């Protein structure tokens, strides 16, 4: 039995087989369309960027992309986006002035948690400042990235359970959502993907 491979040898010309195999593999690779699936679970302004940036860029590279929005990620599919960011409990977030001279804009303001937690409208203000900084630096808005994703045929699917859980209505979300599904419907797509991310 140990010599089984050897028995086949005389019947098959190895060089011809190897050549055919390499050609077939190269052909398969050239025909393969890369694919990516993303699970988007966060609904704040900062966490809205990674899924939309990666999805739109992958689509531009010619990949097949689908994004599954679940839990707070569903917030990113609302008709009216009003995303916010909270510096509270978010110590890595830089707090910088979007206006004024360069020396002022470069200072990271160290605001105590107690102030951030107690000043009414602090999150609104921080969100407004972040949006202004992004606009000034030429960073796309989430609305813009989302519509670019749709234009590039990125498949946006949403979690049915989340809508039921938080007593939402499907009408609150953009009509371009391709499907309302659950984990069992999404996982088989993710299984076949070359890249799969949880954000």
């Amino acid at each position, binding site marked *: 039995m140990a010599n089984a491979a050897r028995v086949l040898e005389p019947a098959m010309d190895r060089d011809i087989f190897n050549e055919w195999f390499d050609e077939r593999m190269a052909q398969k690779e050239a025909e393969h369309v890369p694919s990516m699936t993303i699970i988007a679970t966060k609904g704040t302004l900062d966490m809205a960027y990674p899924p939309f*940036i990666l999805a739109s860029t992958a689509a*531009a590279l010619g990949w097949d992309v689908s994004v599954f929005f679940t839990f707070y990620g569903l917030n990113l599919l609302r008709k009216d986006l009003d995303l916010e960011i909270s510096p509270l409990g978010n110590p890595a977030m830089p707090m910088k002035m979007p206006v004024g001279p360069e020396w002022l804009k470069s200072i990271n303001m160290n605001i105590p948690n107690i102030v951030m937690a107690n000043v009414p409208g602090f999150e609104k203000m921080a969100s407004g400042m972040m949006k202004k900084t992004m606009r000034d630096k030429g*960073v*796309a808005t989430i609305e813009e990235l989302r519509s670019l994703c749709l234009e590039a045929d990125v498949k946006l699917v949403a979690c049915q359970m989340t809508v039921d859980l938080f007593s939402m209505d499907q009408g609150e979300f953009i009509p371009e959502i391709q499907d309302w599904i659950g984990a069992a419907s999404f996982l088989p797509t993710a299984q076949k993907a070359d890249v799969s991310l949880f954000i």
Partner: protein
Amino acid sequence: MNTETTATLDARGLNCPLPILKTKKALNGLESGDTLHLISSDPGSVKDIDAFCTQTGNELLENNTENGDFTFVIRKS
């Protein structure tokens, strides 16, 4: 070989990933063999446009820095 620029895209002031997305859109409107002249002010686009062309099979003919902006000439595959 036709190296005449067919279309121009000014992506100055835009940040990642917009130069790539706008480039892709501009290329969609062109015919195979056409060339696109791209201007970007995003330093990240130097490596990204190169990677984009490698992945999509479009040919990056030129890649220069002019007065702090980055210019590219891409031939659509």
